[in-house]
């Protein structure tokens, strides 16, 4: 018997083919993070976090189950959560209302980082639709660009989206701050900021994470960043 579509299968049978020591290794990677001990103190199973959680209203998702799984040190269940549950969280941290001061949202942050660093297929799939958003953040420092507003991408926003997208430059010029007269970025970003941003991505290992989940995106970013850093006199390679 398999779980109903949209239902979280907690039995773990879908991951029987994964070695137990691999699941333990990934669990250990989460536990080794300095933040881990501040995010998990124990769980009463009171369910206050679930009551506060917006995602729990719409998905078969429970911050309590995340905290419980980690507290029980159940590597098999951890692996199920790592693949099938953590991407349902909206990272709003409403669950921080926990009377034991747990942070299921924080635990999920750590789990997502481990999933991405290890290039899990489920992480690649979850992030696939966000390629251009990640590109924009990393290449320009601004997340949502006005030119994303296209009728074919937002049919649910109504017919006026077409008019806005066709006359985007005019609409943007109607905004009072001239730093927002941009269409490819949310606002004008100066060269010094961009250079510092690229150095931060390089020094903190973010580009290594991108390489694991999206090789195409990595190649584009590598080109953009290495060119600029070279122009600014930095000898940096992302390989």
């Amino acid at each position, binding site marked *: 018997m398999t779980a109903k579509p949209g239902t979280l299968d907690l039995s773990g049978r879908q991951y029987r083919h994964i070695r137990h020591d691999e699941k333990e290794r990934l669990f250990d990677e989460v536990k080794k993070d300095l933040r881990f001990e501040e995010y998990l103190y124990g769980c009463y199973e009171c369910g206050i976090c679930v009551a506060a959680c917006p995602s729990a209203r719409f998905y078969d998702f429970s911050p309590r189950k995340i905290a419980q799984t980690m507290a029980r040190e159940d590597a098999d269940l951890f692996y199920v959560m790592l693949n099938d549950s953590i991407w349902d969280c909206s990272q709003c941290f409403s669950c921080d209302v926990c009377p034991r001061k747990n942070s299921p949202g924080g635990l999920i942050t750590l789990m997502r980082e481990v999933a991405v660093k290890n290039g899990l297929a489920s992480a690649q799939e979850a992030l696939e639709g966000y*390629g251009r958003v990640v590109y924009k953040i990393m290449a320009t420092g601004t997340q949502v660009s006005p030119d994303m507003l296209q009728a074919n991408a*937002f049919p649910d926003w109504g017919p006026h989206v077409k008019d806005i997208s066709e006359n985007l430059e005019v609409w943007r010029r109607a905004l009072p701050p001239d730093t927002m007269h941009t269409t490819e970025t949310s606002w004008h970003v100066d060269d010094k900021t961009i250079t510092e941003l690229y150095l931060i991505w390089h020094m903190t290992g973010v580009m290594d994470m991108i390489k694991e989940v999206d090789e195409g995106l990595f190649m584009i970013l590598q080109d953009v960043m290495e060119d600029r850093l070279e122009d600014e006199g930095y000898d940096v390679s992302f390989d």
Partner: protein
Amino acid sequence: MSENPEVRGCILPLDLHYSVVDHTWIRVHDDKTVTVGMTDVAQNLAGELLHAKPKKVGTVRKKGKPLATVESSKWVGPVKSPLSGEVIAVNDELAGDATLVNRSPYKAGWIVKMQPTDLDAELAGMFTGQEAVDKYRERIEAEDIKACEHVEGFEI
């Protein structure tokens, strides 16, 4: 045999060489330079393009490295070079209208022209004619790639 075979509505002209894995095509000219572009399958997967930014003339690329960055509303990706060589011309028209790639992926929407460094050897790793169509069909069916939709004014 049709001059321009279709797989799930995606047009694949027989006279081009294809890198099926990277969704690119090349047209080999008499002087051994090549024109590079995205296939109909690629433009369809990307969606209506907002930006298509080729690398500058003079850029030297190894096979598999990006020749251009293309962006649609929610997607961004590289056009990977099917050959090693130097970019000798870029399609300047794309700066003003990236949807040329959607409307005319094999003609007006070409991306760059290159001077390949090892054309004969690398060409052997690409597919052309009916073999290319068959290889592309295998990939499209294996990955269940969606059928091609063509925008108004689409041309071959």
